[in-house]
């Protein structure tokens, strides 16, 4: 695995960045500009904006994010296993099963406690 193989990735990053910047520039340079007082407001339609810019989120979002994070970390351990799946064979399957079953208990716990419900 040599680093040169990441050149396309680098090229893609620059391309994406360049395209984003270019399109914005083009629209700024070429687009018609008619600034009216209504357009300067944060919202052009609907209700006039009112109150604080940041609103307090419910703790439930946090619960979901935390649960997601934990199971995301779990998934990370699956990648190396998937890559070495053939070499590890049944041994790997057994080892992974123990890991997976214990974490599934965590999921069962979440489920039974209603942490996955939005209420």
């Amino acid at each position: 695995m040599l680093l040169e193989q990441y050149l396309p990735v680098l090229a893609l990053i620059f391309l994406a960045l360049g395209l984003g910047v270019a399109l914005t520039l083009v629209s700024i340079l070429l687009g018609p500009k008619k600034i009216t007082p209504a357009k300067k407001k944060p919202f052009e339609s609907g209700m006039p904006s009112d109150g604080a810019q940041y609103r307090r989120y419910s703790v439930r979002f946090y619960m979901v994010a935390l649960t997601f994070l934990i199971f995301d970390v779990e998934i990370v351990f699956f990648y190396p296993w998937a890559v070495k799946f053939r070499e590890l064979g049944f041994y790997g399957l057994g080892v992974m099963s123990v890991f997976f079953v214990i974490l599934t208990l965590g999921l069962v716990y979440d489920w039974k406690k209603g942490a996955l419900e939005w209420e």
Partner: protein
Amino acid sequence: MSPGFTQTDFLSIMPEMLIFGMGLVVLLFDLFGQGRSTRNLAYLTLLTLGAAGYLDVMLLGQFLPGFGGSVIADDFSIAFELVFLVVCALTVLISIRYLEDRGLNHGEYYALLLFATGGMMVMASGRDLLMIFIGLEILSISSYILCGFLQQDRRSNESALKYFLLGAFATGFLLYGIMLIYGATGSIALQDIRAALADPATFQNPYIWMGLGMLLVGWSFKIALVPFHMWTPDVYEGAPTAVTAFLSTGPKAACFAALVRILFEALAATRAEWQQVFWVLAALTMTVGNVLALHQDNIKRMLAYSSISHAGYILVALVAGGEEALAGVIFYALAYTLMNTGAFAVLILSSAGDRERVNFSDYAGFGYLEPALGAAMFVFMLSLAGIPLTAGFAGKFQIFKAVVGQGYIWLAVIGVLNSVVSIYYYLRISVVMYMQPATGDSISTRPPGSVPLYVAIVGSLAGVLYLGIFPGGWLEMSLHSVSRIITGG
């Protein structure tokens, strides 16, 4: 290493496997046995701890490195594991009533205690930095949750948050230390690090020293050595009292177990340096802990500062570092567990069925209301202060004898002076109990009895007196279990 396990692999971690497995079982029972009393889960937990203790005793005298040497079942790990099992068993006994009084019928509590105990056992038996770190993390995360278990109580939440933030900060230091030492030696196995340090080029690598410094800071945070102790009083005061008893005994013992293993098995070559650091830290910890404990009106807070100073006494043994001194670490871990948890058990029983009674003034005249409890508290306080015929004295004697034997006279003098100072605040509670008249604010009704709490108090009392009068058995075992650590075999 080819895939597959040997019998030795499984034998070496049998007690840990049992504890973790039963932790999961307790969790499942709690989930699917809704509405039933959690008392049965507490008894199941006690049974598990007993079974794990049996397994540990069966493994005694063995030397079983498992899983490519990442864990080991030797007498050192087993001695500490037995201490952890005692800590957990006493905590379960004192928790039953405490949780019922607060209407907390949550079996997760016992599952978390089992997980924390398993984490401590992994720390004591881990023989590479990764195992020790994972054990520490399991212990820490369980402890954060246990601290915040009283969800409706602001102080409990504060305690969990403070513990979590500072614990995570300390973890950062530990990880940097592990990383630097791995970078310099190319291994995380304690034996390999020791071998790598024999090479002078590696030994002189500044990364080793940076890593060592980071490790010392991290562990000092976790053990709450002065000046890394700021979080302790708030966390211990806010946590549920039963959890405070657990936190002040178990995790500290586990951190000392891991610290002794890392310092003596892996970083023995750097001993001259960390010895000097620990000399200063030990002197500071003993003194500051004691001085701050003098002025507390809250008994939980007083015991929190007292736990800081006791960590200082144990640290003195690490400075001395001989076989005698390290045996003192193990001996003192058990002695401190018994006397400290005993004191907390009396506190919990006294305020059973009532609001939490943790101020000195609550106990005015308590000695006449409950003479037996008052007497038990007196013995625990004598032991904490280190009066002869108690476990506390035997432990301190063992440590200070070894320290003087190694020539650290001044450290021993500081330690003994601190013990003298500590008599003042330990005996203050007995003075309040017996010599101050009851006021309208103090406890006026006899607390309702609770069998598990009685068992905990009588058990710790018996242990404190037994270790104080016949220290020989446990001391012998402690001496035996550290011999291999010193030689690095």
